[in-house]
């Protein structure tokens, strides 16, 4: 049973650049959520995608955008990178309507902005 996968594992970018991170959900899941985890903090919810649409969004600026494809995989795009965007970016997948709600995380992408 394939778990959540993310690519790339690590990424180094310069301020002002743009980045795209990718996520494939766990087999059988249809919903993908993205989180930002700064060092020493818990994950902060960025947004969630279901049926190729953004369903919920946390307190993140419009520089953060996403997409979900028909095969349920997803991308996170961040424009005009800032030093403060350096973090571990986590993708989690779940199945809508499951009770109780549970999500499963990928290993994350470590983004460093210099």
């Amino acid at each position, binding site marked *: 049973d394939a778990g959540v996968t993310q690519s790339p594992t690590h990424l180094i970018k310069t301020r002002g650049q743009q980045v795209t991170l990718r996520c494939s959900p766990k087999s059988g899941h249809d919903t993908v959520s993205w989180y930002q985890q700064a060092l020493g903090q818990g994950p902060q919810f960025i947004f969630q995608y279901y049926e190729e649409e953004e369903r*919920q969004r946390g307190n993140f600026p419009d520089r953060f955008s996403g997409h979900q494809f028909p095969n349920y995989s997803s991308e996170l795009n961040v424009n005009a990178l800032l030093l403060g965007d350096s973090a571990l970016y986590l993708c989690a997948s779940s199945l809508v309507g499951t009770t109780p709600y549970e999500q499963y995380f990928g290993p994350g992408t470590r983004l460093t902005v210099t």
Partner: protein
Amino acid sequence: TQLLEQSPQFLSIQEGENLTVYCNSSSVFSSLQWYRQEPGEGPVLLVTVVTGGEVKKLKRLTFQFGDARKDSSLHITAAQPGDTGLYLCEGGSYIPTFGRGTSLIVHP
């Protein structure tokens, strides 16, 4: 904004000791999840609690959901070095909310 407060923030103990970590909120949650996260990895789901007063056991780990569904605790009996990690709680809500975590180190 719903907040989850976790305590203690850091815990360093010897192998064989018992410990309890806490997750508290002023809000009611429909469910609460506990995860363990190792450095550079994603959180791994340990348990989900749903019913107020519910107790779940996972080997040496005991999870309890408060009667009012606003708080939860995780008790580890006879901790082992393999228990080392960041323990996170997440409240089930419209916007997923995580605590800052408890960083546990178990020394051999």
